[in-house]
């Protein structure tokens, strides 16, 4: 990418990543979007960077929806009678994350199964109850995702407007050249 094209992007504060996120992945997604631009200009490159950040936020909030469910399920399990003393949501939440993604250690798997037994719940019961309890927060996460999609629509509209403007300038340039050529031809004829 030319330096002149990069320039607005370097002037604006860059989108920041979370400590566990990959800069390489972020850049590769950005390059993918930039390659879609017919004629990159400094402004639409800056807009595409914002668009890429929105996609990142959608990912984060989508992951959060699952984490909200885990938090809620962990709360239910921790309240099971025998385990009332072990009210460590974070630990149970992490164990549940591994349990549902299928990569929990044998010990964690056993622990979650014991908690389920104590709470007299099946996995699907727990999920249903967890969803019910976390519904308010999950709805909020959905609204945050929806906001990002709306922002992306605004950014797309802006990119289109920049593209339209550059196409318009190009057309006007061509028309001007034609007028100039015609005028030159007329001058040549009259002389």
């Amino acid at each position: 990418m030319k330096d002149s094209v990069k320039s607005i992007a370097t002037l604006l504060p860059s989108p920041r990543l979370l400590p566990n996120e990959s800069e390489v992945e972020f850049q590769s997604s950005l390059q993918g979007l930039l390659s879609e631009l017919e004629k990159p200009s400094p402004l639409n490159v800056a807009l595409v960077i914002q668009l890429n950040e929105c996609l990142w936020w959608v990912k984060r909030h989508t992951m959060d929806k699952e984490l909200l469910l885990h938090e809620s399920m962990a709360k239910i399990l921790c309240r099971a009678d025998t385990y009332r003393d072990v009210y460590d949501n974070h630990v149970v939440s992490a164990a549940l994350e591994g349990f549902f993604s299928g990569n929990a250690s044998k010990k964690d798997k056993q622990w979650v199964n014991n908690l389920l037994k104590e709470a007299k719940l099946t996995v699907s019961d727990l999920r249903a109850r967890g969803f019910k309890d976390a519904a308010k927060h999950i709805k909020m996460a959905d609204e945050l995702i929806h906001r990002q999609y709306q922002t992306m629509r605004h950014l797309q509209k802006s990119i289109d407007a920049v593209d339209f403007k550059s196409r318009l300038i190009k057309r006007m340039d061509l028309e001007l050249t034609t007028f100039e050529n015609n005028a030159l031809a007329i001058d040549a004829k009259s002389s």
Partner: protein
Amino acid sequence: MASSRNSRKHGLTVQVDFESSDVYASLKSLLSEEGFSSFMAADIATSLLHYRRVMDAYYDTYTSPEPVNELMRDMSVTDSMPIFREMLSEPDDVRDMAAFFANMQRKEQRKGGPVSRRTVDCHKLIRYQRHAISRLPKAIRPA
């Protein structure tokens, strides 16, 4: 109100004079070079800076939710009654103290874990984001 408290924390309720900053001047000049009129370049530069400001505040809000007060969340008010009795002589005061802690605990538990907290905090910034982004296409729209 909690939402205004949250936005005040990030200075989003305060008007910022972007026009006197160097970044604004550089952005405006680059946009003018791209063929935008001086007025449009100024409008676009302000909109971009405003949008970035909101998104940076959004990131900060997401990454630093109010910490969970584990002591308050996990304490047993019933088990704490002897301590309250030791501290206070009047039975009414002991009852009030227990009610106060029970109320605080309910509030703390209702806030949920860190993911719930950051979701609620970010949700409060939706209107700032909506306002910031809506300015941009208007500033860029073709004449």
